[in-house]
């Protein structure tokens, strides 16, 4: 039985998916891009717009066909009645939009957990509340741990004074917990800052205290000059002001004055703007013009 006829008929029913290219096309499937270095028919591109567009469409169709062939041969996963092709890693180097994040320094707890090899147990967000027979968040709004926001009754614990306000006690405990957490976070921050600067945290605190002391000393009416010094306090070093003697060498005096003159007139006008020459000139010109108009 000759089946070649039937096979040929079947083949001719569908259009070919083969594309011929002299130089193999490079693909970057991670980006879904292809780079074709084959020779382009320049005559077609220089021709009329319509011919050019038809040629470009043909070229694009072939390129797209090649890419579709590649994409359909990738490993696939089926998910919710649509087929997904797993893309490989990107090969072209593309720049990031922001630099890579700096590594955050470890907190005290993290260092401890690392030594003791304590793993972080992931807890679920929702917890089943037996009493109310519903799912509630573990923390936060309508959370399981916030039940005692305003309980209608609090038993006085055995060791407490019966006249103490237990509601107030609860509020204060919660506030203390929050403050403790904030203090610890602040301590972590300061320690990491000190480590970044290459100092021990204790030394950094010492330095800060000393500079604060010096500043506070000078905040009196007489700038701390007549205050009694405590025993063992270090001598505060201030800025030493140097004054030239009244009667100077005449050459030196001349050169100093010339320097000042130069600075004021031209020399450093551009950099230190002692006198903004442009503005001054404009002011003079405006004055002259207004004088002329008056006349």
């Amino acid at each position: 039985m000759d089946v070649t006829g039937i096979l040929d008929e079947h083949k001719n029913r569908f259009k070919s998916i083969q594309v011929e290219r002299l130089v193999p096309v490079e693909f970057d499937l991670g980006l879904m891009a292809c780079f074709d270095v084959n020779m382009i028919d320049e005559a077609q591109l220089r021709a009329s717009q319509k011919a050019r567009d038809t040629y470009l469409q043909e070229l694009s169709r072939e390129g797209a066909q090649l890419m579709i062939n590649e994409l359909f041969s990738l490993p696939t996963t089926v998910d919710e009645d649509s087929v997904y092709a797993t893309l490989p890693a990107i090969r072209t180097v593309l720049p990031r939009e922001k630099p890579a994040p700096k590594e955050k320094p470890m907190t005290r707890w993290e260092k401890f957990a690392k030594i003791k090899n304590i793993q972080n147990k992931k807890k679920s967000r929702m917890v089943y509340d037996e009493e109310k027979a519903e799912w509630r968040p573990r923390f936060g709004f309508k959370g399981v741990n916030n039940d005692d926001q305003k309980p209608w009754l609090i038993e006085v614990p055995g060791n407490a004074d019966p006249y103490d306000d237990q509601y107030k006690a609860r509020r204060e405990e919660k506030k203390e917990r929050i403050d403790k957490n904030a203090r610890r976070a602040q301590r972590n921050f300061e320690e990491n800052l000190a480590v970044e600067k290459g100092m021990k945290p204790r030394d950094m605190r010492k330095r800060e205290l000393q500079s604060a002391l010096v500043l506070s000393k000078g905040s009196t009416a007489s700038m701390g000059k007549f205050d009694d010094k405590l025993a063992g306090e270090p001598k505060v070093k201030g800025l030493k002001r140097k004054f030239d003697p009244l009667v100077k060498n005449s050459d030196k005096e001349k050169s100093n004055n010339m320097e000042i003159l130069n600075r004021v007139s031209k020399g450093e006008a551009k950099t230190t703007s002692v006198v903004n020459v442009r503005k001054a000139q404009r002011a003079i010109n405006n004055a002259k013009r207004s004088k002329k108009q008056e006349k």
Partner: protein
Amino acid sequence: MLLKPKAKNARAKRFLVNRDPKIVENGKTALFVRGSTTSQVILDTLKDLYSLRKPDAINFTKKNEIHPFDSETSIEFFARKNDSSLFAVGMHSKKRPHNLVLGRTFNYNILDMIELGVERCTTMQQFKAQTCAIGMKPLMIFNGEAFNQNEDLVRLKSILLDFFRGEAADKVSLKGLEYVITVTAGPAGANGETGLVFFRTYTTTLKKSGTRQPRVELEEMGPSLDLRVRRVRQPTEDMWKQAIKMPRELKVVKTKNISRDGLGDKYGRIHVGKQEINKIQTRKVKALKKHLDDKPSKKQKTSNDMADSD
């Protein structure tokens, strides 16, 4: 220099954390700005590119005094405020008609940009084809060896790949390959100057082909642009190096010392260091004590018993 804003509630904090540098980054947002004078051609181009780039795109409809090649401050300010790392500025002047500047920023500073003259633009509305859904990833085709050789075109290729990349994805739905962007390098000019670049966009239809891979048919969707490369600003060496630096977490870790044989069994190799056999701590046997060798006459009752019991 904008001050770093402080978050006053959790929502604001989440917003700021989203904009912080990350290991795996968000998709890049593109900003479309108009210059002080514009032409209809360039406005159409900007509008079409914006619709291709949605939803990760911001369109400024007011005119701005903006000259990217002369002053970088306005672009950097916009990038910082809008958290956009791609920008497209359109303007028109007698010297540079229908001017389109495409560029990227790194860490809110201009990384590189390319100035293109739009010599012809056919908008999406002029083609009667059905446009594709918003947010689809396009297939990109670059035709011509000039894209590997000509420095300006290499830069253009890099910028266009970044521009139309869309969200980073590690898998793609085979039904969602809806459109194709083709960039072809035209013939070079007489003096070796860069030729026209033909930018074409098509929608795809996949037809049966009797095999697993379908047959692709294209229909032009637009925009269709003929671009002339004008000025190019290449990135500085160190900025480029910093920009392509991959964070350590993303580097692929090679699995060493693990292999599979033909039957599928997994084999591992354990490297044991050099062992000092003389210094290994074994069970203490009195008979093996060194000083007992000096007095051979003494009877070793216990050790003999032990020997017998073995």
